[in-house]
């Protein structure tokens, strides 16, 4: 796997690069700002670009804008956005245009090598990755007459994993059940939440996140 890392803080960037090296992931370029990122991505065509959301010159959402541009320009390149912010709206902005091959993770998460590698692999496989903390925040949101309250504990678990972007097979592996069982759970959840989306599609992550973020 070939990866470009865009991160302006040296400590974090070096940490990520070292971790990736140990996991035998090839880092083809390290950059510090969005402009250099776009240059390297166009040049190297990596499998995934690991991008900090906040970079020079304005230190606001350059990384998010660059991620969206990469997805529009080079559909073959996946993007993993790193952030300090637990803001579902950033994740939704990243996902809403092209939900496949993108991920939004909190920075502290990526130093767990297993999580980082898992995220990169899922992104290259065309899935979405949403940080569990974001999903937790959305699921924890108080609602009036909350249909989420009508779910069984197991269905809630499945809903959270769907929101994190996991496929049915991955969910099955995580919960030690068969893919068939997961499929039934997902159907049941979509029915209870009155979600219109096809429970099998790639875009179900977006549908679930939008549902959870939409309010009471």
């Amino acid at each position, binding site marked *: 796997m070939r990866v470009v890392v865009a991160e302006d*803080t040296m*400590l*974090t960037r070096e*940490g990520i690069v070292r*971790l990736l090296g140990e996991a035998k992931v090839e880092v083809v370029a390290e950059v510090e700002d969005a402009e250099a990122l776009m240059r390297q991505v166009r040049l190297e065509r990596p499998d995934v670009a690991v991008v900090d959301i*906040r970079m020079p010159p304005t*230190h*606001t*959402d350059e990384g998010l804008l660059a991620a969206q541009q990469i997805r529009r320009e080079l559909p073959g390149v996946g993007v993993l956005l790193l952030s*300090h*912010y*637990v*803001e*579902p*709206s*950033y994740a939704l*902005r990243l996902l809403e245009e092209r939900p496949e091959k993108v991920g939004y993770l909190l*920075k*502290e998460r990526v*130093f*767990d*090598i297993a999580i980082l590698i898992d995220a990169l692999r899922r992104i290259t496989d065309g899935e979405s990755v949403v940080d569990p903390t974001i999903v937790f*925040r*959305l699921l*924890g*949101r*108080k*609602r*009036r007459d*909350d249909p989420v309250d009508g779910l069984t504990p197991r269905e809630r678990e499945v809903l959270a994993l769907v929101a994190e972007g996991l496929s049915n097979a991955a969910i099955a592996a995580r919960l030690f059940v068969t893919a068939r069982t997961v499929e039934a759970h997902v159907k049941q959840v979509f029915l209870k939440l009155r979600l219109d989306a096809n429970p099998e599609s790639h875009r179900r992550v977006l549908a679930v996140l939008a549902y959870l*973020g939409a*309010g*009471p």
Partner: protein
Amino acid sequence: MKAAAFAGVGRAGVLRLVACLLALAAGITTVLLVPNSAKPPTTYGSASGLAWAADVLAGASLLAAGLALTIVRRRAWIGIVAVLAGAVWFAPDWVGWEEAAPLLRSAAMVVGPFLAPLLLHLVLAAPTGRLDSRAARALVATLYVVAAVVSIGEALLRDPFLDRYCWSNCTDNVFLVRPDQEVVRWLQTGYLLAVVAGAMAVGALVVWRLANTGRGVRQVVLLAGLGVAASVAFSAGALLLDRAENPSVTSFAALFFARAAATTALASALGWAAYVAWRTRSAVARLTVDLAEAPAPGSLRASLAASLGDPDVEVAYPLNGSRRFIDGAGEAVAQPTGGQGRVVTPIVRDGREIALVGHSRGDLAAEELAREIGAGARLAVENERLQAEVLAQLHDLQGSRARIVEAGDTARRRLERDLHDGAQQRLLALTYDLRLARTAAQSEGDEGLALTLEGTVDEAHTALEELRELAHGIYPTILGEAGLGPALRGLADRAAIPVELIDHSAKRHSSPVETAVYILVDDAVAEAARRHATHALVRVRSDRSRLLVEVEDDGAVAGSVSQHVRDRVGALGGRVERVGGLFRSEIPCA
């Protein structure tokens, strides 16, 4: 009031009244008695019917304008000058009236030389009646002295029988003491030279004034005055060249018509000026009454503009203890300046300038305005000035309040960024190192150390989480980057009770406005949760000039609004109110 006015007029006023009546009587008698034809003509008026009409018209209009000016400008001498000029205008008609009593003809001859000084005085003093420079006063005084010398000289020394160029009165001089034709000749020449020089000087002064005046009555008066000065100068000049004056000769007749026309024009212009001054004064007087009765602060400028018929009137109040000026609404304005047809009139109360009024020069003499704004109105002006001062201080205060809040926000944003770029990154690096250490301990088979390090990583994660919440509490980054909508949705995600969000604000607003809305919604929702509300409804909508925020909840007890929310919204010139479970706020966002 009436008694005081008469007392103010005093003896000078009575004297003036008597003089006016006498001059008027002289004028009317002339028109009624003096013949309008003679062969050969002994006056210009008797040369033809047209000449007679021009003669009477010029004299009568001078008398009429003089009377009008005497009424309108009671304290200025200009009315009496005009009336006297009108009376003296008719003097040649008496001189040339052969059937009249010799005493009358001689008396008319004596006053005759005063016509030129009177006319030139009138030109210089028009339209206000004031000779506003030392040069003008000296010039007029000199002309009167010359006229007096010539008049006395002619009375004592001129024997009409011996006058070679005699045409008008060749018989009578009852004052004659000793005929001396030679001296009379010299006196007459000197007189004519003085008149030519004086008229030219007056003409020059008038031209200079014309260049510095705007459009309006004043300009017309000055133009007519210039005509009078020119015709007087040419008439005297013509006599210097040819002493054989004769109304039948075309050049002399033409000069007479020019004199009569210019004089009539000047008299008409003065009459008009008197009318305009009267109208302005009654308007200002009405305004004065209005102001004294019911002064609506901030309305003085509009009232003055209407009264003076000058839409560009400026009213500026000096701000105490500074060189700044403010208008009635307390906004800073430039100090009114004169020039280009505009003048500035200070309004003084207790020896202190309380206002400057900038207005066009044309229709109103500056001192007239200051005079007419009486004591009662001055109180109203002072009242408006004080109100404007308070408003200006309020503007300053609002500005500084907003700046204080903004400075606070800037500091919070910087603090959030410092946390993000500093502490958060270091803590992140620490978790990285801890993980490495744990992996190393594991691979060396030190399970106890690995377990401890595992716990430390968790601790560091908790610290990171708390730091993140702290940074978010200091300043929610998403508010600045994505705006009110996403920030409020984030707020609803974290809230302790269900929060429904109806956001119609759509566009971005200034950072202080967005921050204020965020903080007040945050505060209202937290407060609703404290009062055990089961949910809150947040509505945000904006029109062109303001942002409306409503937070409604079903909490048990009536809610309150915290002081820092009031301060923040107040700093933006907005307001907050709470009616039971409904919290409303309006924030201007032009």
